């Protein structure tokens, strides 16, 4: 088996501003986070999911998104950021009750100290109506950190506190092949 559960962070209380994964094992090749999240605060446009790396705010992050709000496709980017960012994937109190945004986030070669780290995410939510942009979104996102340090911790946050029931599950993916001679 290649994909292994590392840890889960589940919101059970009303004062949870971040979902944290510390001391991430360095024994896998890739990381995958699966998020189902909602915030308690209220804003028409869904919030961004932000990810602080290694407990600090090192420089030179960037993100880029390719999105649809149901009416048209759009594209946007932001550079010189201080954290990974997965935009527009966090519905909140403004939106239909009990709607949680879903995202699958892949970070390749997270222990490789010769490479920067690039995140790729597919995520979004449908809220059964609303007037854009205050409704559903779907996005393919990339976000990069040019730093070459291994990733040892990830802290997921957005705006305010997560809603009860939000969760993020972190998996490690190995690359030990079962075949040889490629």
């Amino acid at each position, binding site marked *: 088996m290649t994909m292994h559960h590392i840890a889960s962070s589940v919101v059970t209380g009303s004062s949870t501003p971040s979902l944290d994964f510390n001391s991430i094992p360095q024994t896998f090749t*890739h990381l995958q986070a699966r998020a189902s999240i909602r915030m308690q605060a209220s804003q028409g446009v869904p919030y961004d999911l932000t990810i602080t790396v290694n407990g600090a705010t090192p420089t030179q992050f*960037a993100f*880029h998104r390719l999105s649809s709000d149901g009416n048209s*496709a759009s*594209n946007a980017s932001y550079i010189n950021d201080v954290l990974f960012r997965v935009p527009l994937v966090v519905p909140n109190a403004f939106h239909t009750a009990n709607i949680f945004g879903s995202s699958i986030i892949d970070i390749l070669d997270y222990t490789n100290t010769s*490479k920067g780290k690039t995140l*790729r995410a597919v995520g979004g939510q449908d809220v059964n109506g609303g007037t854009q942009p205050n409704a559903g979104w779907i996005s393919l996102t990339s976000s990069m950190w040019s730093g070459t340090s291994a990733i040892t911790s990830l802290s997921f946050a957005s705006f305010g506190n997560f809603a009860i029931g939000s969760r993020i599950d972190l998996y490690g993916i190995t*690359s030990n092949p079962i075949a040889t001679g*490629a």
Partner: protein
Amino acid sequence: MPRGMQAIYSTTLTTTGITQVNFSNIPQTFTDLKVYVSARDGRTDAEFANIAVRLNGAGLSVYSNMNIAGTGGTASTDTFNSQVAYYYNLYANSASSTANVFSNDEMYIPNYTSYGFKQVLIDNATEGNSGNPLLVMNAGLYRGSGPITSITFFAQNIAFAQNSTFTLYGIGR
């Protein structure tokens, strides 16, 4: 016992100048195939580089695809029927993009052992600290009739950079 996802082949390039990575004799014991590519290319005239993907060594006429892409302020879409110039494309960061940053690409081929046509789903991310990295989602149709037994990745511009990685996974019940 469920098989889940297992790595079949994994290649990390330890030198520069490599232009081709080939996974052959792919076991026919899984249901789906998935590939992760984290690559960089020596190209200097754009922030990304093309990686052609060839299945079973087949010629150009059996590939078609449609995509949605973004390179900056706008999104675009395109279709390529009965390809005459390209196989399926993945994308690598280029030498012109932010230093040390490699692409994050995923390719998924369901039901790869069937004798029917195959759908190929691709997500590409060549992020960089500039306004113009490339994001692409691609749905392709491979009209070859046999099971997928080999996948070859070609650097279409210069060559893959050292530390580029290619990993093939099998997903099975």
